[in-house]
């Protein structure tokens, strides 16, 4: 087999100011789950700049519609919403074909999860998860109902603001990201230890979806706009000889 020379793009390093620190004492669960050693910095190899590829035909036609993908006898109860936006990289390029997976509580703030014991009831017509692939412009949309806030065991009277969890696979292992989307105007955001673990105001604002009246469907659904930025690739290249294992032996 021939020896190839391949130029491979690295990603911009993550800026720690863009993210919450591992140890955020007001968020009590982080105390025993944050590493105490410094992370070991890696220069990127093929292991970091490649990632799994997903195909549209792997998804069902209702996977992105949480108002219908678990409906048994009717529609879920709650405020009908469209959540949509663009996923880009740090260079502003569309992040196409990115697997997005979301999950959330129902309108009462209750999760369909065997560990959730909150007294608000389960909605028989609401599962609470959805998934989609971004299109060639990095665009995505989901239909859902607005999740309710809920209490959690942190400090004695902590309540999470309404939020939707977002998971993005990106195009490479190094871009993998999980975050949460909040709603414009929610007064619980300011006091939430998880939201406030982000120490940069601008970065926290970036997680707050804005009411989008132009996309709102009259007599049907309100719309919120939530754009996401994944890590971008550097313009500089390094050269990497790629061989087959047989050549090495």
């Amino acid at each position, binding site marked *: 087999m021939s020896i190839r020379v391949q130029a491979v793009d690295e990603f911009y390093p993550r800026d720690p100011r863009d993210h919450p620190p*591992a140890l955020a004492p007001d968020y009590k669960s982080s105390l025993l789950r944050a590493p105490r*050693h410094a992370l070991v910095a890696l220069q990127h190899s093929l*292991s970091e700049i490649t990632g*799994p590829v997903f195909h549209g035909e792997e998804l069902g036609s209702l996977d992105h519609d949480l108002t219908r993908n678990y409906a048994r006898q009717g529609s879920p109860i709650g405020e009908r919403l469209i959540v949509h936006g663009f996923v880009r990289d740090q260079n502003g390029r569309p992040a196409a074909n990115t697997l997005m997976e979301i999950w959330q509580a129902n309108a009462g703030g209750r999760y369909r999860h065997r560990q959730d014991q909150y007294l608000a009831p389960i909605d028989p017509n609401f599962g609470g*998860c959805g998934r989609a692939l971004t299109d060639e412009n990095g665009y995505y949309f989901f239909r859902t109902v607005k999740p309710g806030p809920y209490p959690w065991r942190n400090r004695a009277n902590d309540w999470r603001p309404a939020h939707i969890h977002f998971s993005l696979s990106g195009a490479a292992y190094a871009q993998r990201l999980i975050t949460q989307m909040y709603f414009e105007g929610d007064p619980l955001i300011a006091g939430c230890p998880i939201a406030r673990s982000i120490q940069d105001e601008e970065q926290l604002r970036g997680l707050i979806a804005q009411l989008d009246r132009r996309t709102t469907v009259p007599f049907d659904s309100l719309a919120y706009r939530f754009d*996401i930025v994944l890590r971008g690739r550097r313009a500089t290249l390094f050269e990497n000889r790629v061989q087959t294992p047989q050549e090495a032996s």
Partner: protein
Amino acid sequence: MNPFPFPHPPHMLRETASQTAGPYVHIGLAPQQAGFDVYRNPIGASLLADGLEGQPIVLSGLVLDGAGAPVRDALLEIWQADAHGRYAGPEAAGFRGWARACTDFDKGSYRIDTIKPGRVMGRDGRWMAPHINVWLVARGINLGLHTRIYFADEAEANAVDPVLSLIDGEGRLQTLLARPEGAGDEWVYRFDIHLQGERETVFFEL
């Protein structure tokens, strides 16, 4: 608060901030473990496929917190090369190279069925030892943690691995080695992940 006059180049967007996956991550990423079915085709439950070349192996272990208690709500994903050291793509068609698993709600243990990867070329023409990239999230983890699984029975390859050579101290290096364990017909590697404490696993900044 920010000591730098021009902290972010104006032409570059800032990466969206991470937030914890929380305790109910299973709903979105592994609904069956949350206790319900919603998708006809769950993605990521298994890496094995018919006709896949290579030695099938089982990765299993515990995730533990700083008090030594099992983390029973963690989610792990792996990303690896095929048996010939090729990542998924045109050269490794039909191979996804990716899977996810959750720790169980009782013991905090996980299990992933996969194949042993081949060696992949690293930077500057140096071969990396066979390894599996691991990404871990859970309640209490604000930004997903990256680590690598190497194999204790690949001592020769591990000795020249460019990433393992970055790690100070034999004890820390040992935290990245999965150990073969006899378990009947299966080829099992044991890999515990310690989030904090004396045996804290090495985590990487990518």
